[in-house]
């Protein structure tokens, strides 16, 4: 049975899982299901969220748990994704947590503001929201000024989990908002590096990519 991923391509969480699969030189089928249906809730994810993952051995949910599984199951294939030392593993885990607890919310808030909130037709980003994004990106700039990737010298799941967010950010921002990235040279260089990887290019060339056109 091939690997099956359930969820829309446009979700950065789906994309992160897909990227990890390509980094491991594996293939997958991208499928959709009604996430509120009893079939999905009972067999895939009782919390009714995407992505879910299925292979011949197991069914999983939670994108970071899926990525960890892929990185370990295919440890000897493709790119190593968990760090080459216990220190890199620790920092990989640290930045995965940062992604969950400090990065995602401000970035999603900003994206929602830019793409329009039906309750607030004025789609400009509020000052506090922009400040939150800039504050968190300052910490990334500081980190990436001391190491090539988030965990150290090795590219890991920690980097992978961020690539789709910056892809979306780049697609939806004007030059003014792009300054959040372009004004931070190490952050900018790192994004360019992780976004030029063959596995990422292969992923963005999939027919399911909506390219964020409204």
């Amino acid at each position, binding site marked *: 049975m091939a690997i099956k991923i359930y969820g829309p391509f446009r979700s950065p969480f789906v994309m992160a899982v897909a990227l990890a699969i390509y980094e491991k030189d594996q293939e997958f089928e991208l499928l959709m299901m009604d996430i509120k249906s009893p079939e999905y809730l009972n067999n895939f994810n*009782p*919390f009714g969220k995407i992505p879910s993952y299925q292979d011949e*051995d*197991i069914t*999983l*949910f*939670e994108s*970071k*748990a899926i990525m*960890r*599984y892929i990185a*370990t*199951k295919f440890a000897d294939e493709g790119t190593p994704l968990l760090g080459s030392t*216990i*220190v890199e*593993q*620790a*920092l990989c*885990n*640290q930045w*995965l*947590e*940062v992604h*969950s*607890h*400090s990065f995602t919310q401000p970035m999603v808030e900003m994206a929602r503001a830019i793409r329009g909130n039906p309750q607030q037709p004025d789609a400009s980003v509020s000052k506090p929201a922009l400040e939150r994004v800039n504050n968190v990106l*300052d*910490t990334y700039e*500081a*980190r990436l000024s001391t190491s090539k990737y988030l965990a150290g010298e090795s590219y890991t799941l920690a980097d992978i989990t961020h690539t789709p967010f910056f892809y979306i950010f780049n697609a939806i921002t004007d030059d003014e908002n792009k300054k959040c990235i372009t004004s931070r040279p190490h952050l900018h260089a790192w994004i360019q590096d992780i976004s030029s990887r063959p596995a990422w290019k292969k992923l963005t060339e999939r027919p399911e990519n909506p390219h964020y056109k409204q």
Partner: protein
Amino acid sequence: MGLTVHGDICSPFVKIAAMTIYEKNEDFELVFARLSLLKTEEFLAKNPFGRMPVLEDGDLVVFESRAVARYVEAKFEGQGTPLMPANLKEQALVNIWAEVESQSFCPPVWAICSQFLSKKVPDVSVIEASREKLEKVLDIYEIQLSKRKYLAGDFFSLADLFHIPLLHILQCLSEDIFRSVINSRTYVHKWHQDITNRPSWKRIISVPEASDWSFLPKV
């Protein structure tokens, strides 16, 4: 030179680090850091997000409690309690439920606790909205725990451990809410009693500071 943990033992996140270290039959030096110290240049150099705990082990500095716990488990693998199974599928289940804790359990619990910790008059509508979310999450836990003793299987793991300090602070701050969401669910209740019976946990809450949030400023 051993492990150093920067933080205040009243923090549920510091407790995650502490409990993991104790489960591995190790010890640590607690370098006390109260909330007011977290925004100093010295602390921000360790954790730019200005939060506790921070673990120092030689030259390594790690923050984010769940990452600290994973590091401790990896470093002391083979001693104390195995908190992460070797089997790939079992590992995946631990990672799933660790993520569920992080993404679905922690936010509503922390939202409720925050109301009691820092506000003079808790905002009832915020508490109710969070409680509703928590109930839906715990309904799923109840089904899960009816099929197995612990979240990832019939073995205690990091996934269970991550829940303990948050359950504790919720119980301390609102026994009513705790009883109605936890004790009302047979399997969740049983699981809670089991996991809080562990010697490592009892050691942590044996000190009064572990349950004292009275120093926090009231608005």
